[in-house]
């Protein structure tokens, strides 16, 4: 089911515009990329550790994550991805995958051939710079996860992650009023934070008990944003978000 529908890549444009500015010509160039749109089921690998990638995957709807399996079924999740993200952008320059990208929920994705991405970035160095900026912000997020994994106690760690996931979704118009989708399990949270599901359960109960959040039917509601920010020493600088009002 090949598709070249205009604006299929709107989520990507919205994402890039949350971290940089695009001209009309740049927007049109992105919109004219050839894409294959697919709907994938939940928990389906998109590209696996060891694969040699030939295309990039843009998330259009749903959630994905990057992860790696260790022995005895242990899994580390490196990052969560939402609509507009290109989680395997690095494969454009490093095609050999050193981790796996998979869906967490049912997801709609667009595949763009590497050669089309190379052509686009050669014709528009400013788009190459925008993608580079996005990659650098990705690295900044990894640094924050590293700090959390190594130095933050469980409560602070999870609170920090919730602040991040809310703001990332708010920046692309998928969340507002301190309410956002959180379609992931306690086991996913455990695999992303290096905790056990038992610890996640305890921390969530404590957060609820202190009136900071509710988490019901895959929706996170932050009832006390300022307090959650304070409790996790959250500073959004590392997300390098552009104010949408500023255009």
């Amino acid at each position, binding site marked *: 089911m090949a598709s070249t529908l205009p604006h299929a890549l709107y989520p990507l444009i919205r994402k890039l515009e949350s971290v940089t500015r695009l001209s009309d010509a740049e927007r049109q160039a992105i919109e004219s990329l050839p894409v294959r749109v697919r709907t994938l089921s939940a928990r389906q690998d998109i590209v696996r550790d060891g694969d040699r990638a030939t295309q990039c995957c843009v998330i259009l709807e749903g959630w994905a994550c990057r992860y790696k399996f260790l022995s005895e079924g*242990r899994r580390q999740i490196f990052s969560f991805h939402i609509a507009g993200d290109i989680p395997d952008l690095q494969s454009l320059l490093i095609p050999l995958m050193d981790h796996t990208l998979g869906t967490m929920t049912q997801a709609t994705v667009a595949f763009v051939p590497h050669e089309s991405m190379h052509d686009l970035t050669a014709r528009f160095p400013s788009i190459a710079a925008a993608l580079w900026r996005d990659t650098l912000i990705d690295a900044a997020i990894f640094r924050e996860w590293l700090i959390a994994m190594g130095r933050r106690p469980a409560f602070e760690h999870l609170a920090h992650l919730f602040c991040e996931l809310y703001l990332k979704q708010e920046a692309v118009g998928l969340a507002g009023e301190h309410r956002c989708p959180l379609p992931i399990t306690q086991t996913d949270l455990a695999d992303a934070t290096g905790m056990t599901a038992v610890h996640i359960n305890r921390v969530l109960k404590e957060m609820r008990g202190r009136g900071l959040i509710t988490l019901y039917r895959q929706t996170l509601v932050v009832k006390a944003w300022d307090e959650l920010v304070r409790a996790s020493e959250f500073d959004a600088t590392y997300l390098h978000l552009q104010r949408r009002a500023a255009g």
Partner: protein
Amino acid sequence: MTLRLQPVRVATSSEDSDGQLVFVDGFLVAVLVHLSGQHGANAGMWFLEAGFGLTAVMSAPLFLDVDAAQDWIERHLGTKRITAGL
């Protein structure tokens, strides 16, 4: 290898407070905690709250009862000892 249990209350900042210290040949090797009702389907299972030395693993399974936990600890220490001896 002789395992010995000693009941203990554990401050987990949750409703899970009923625990057992596990000693092997007099050495503390693990703290087990009985999961409370707040854990839904996992309530009643036993959780490796802390492991010391060879049981200091990042992720252990949940155990149906204390016997299963002791089996795991014995197996784990035994396996590790063989590996360490190679």
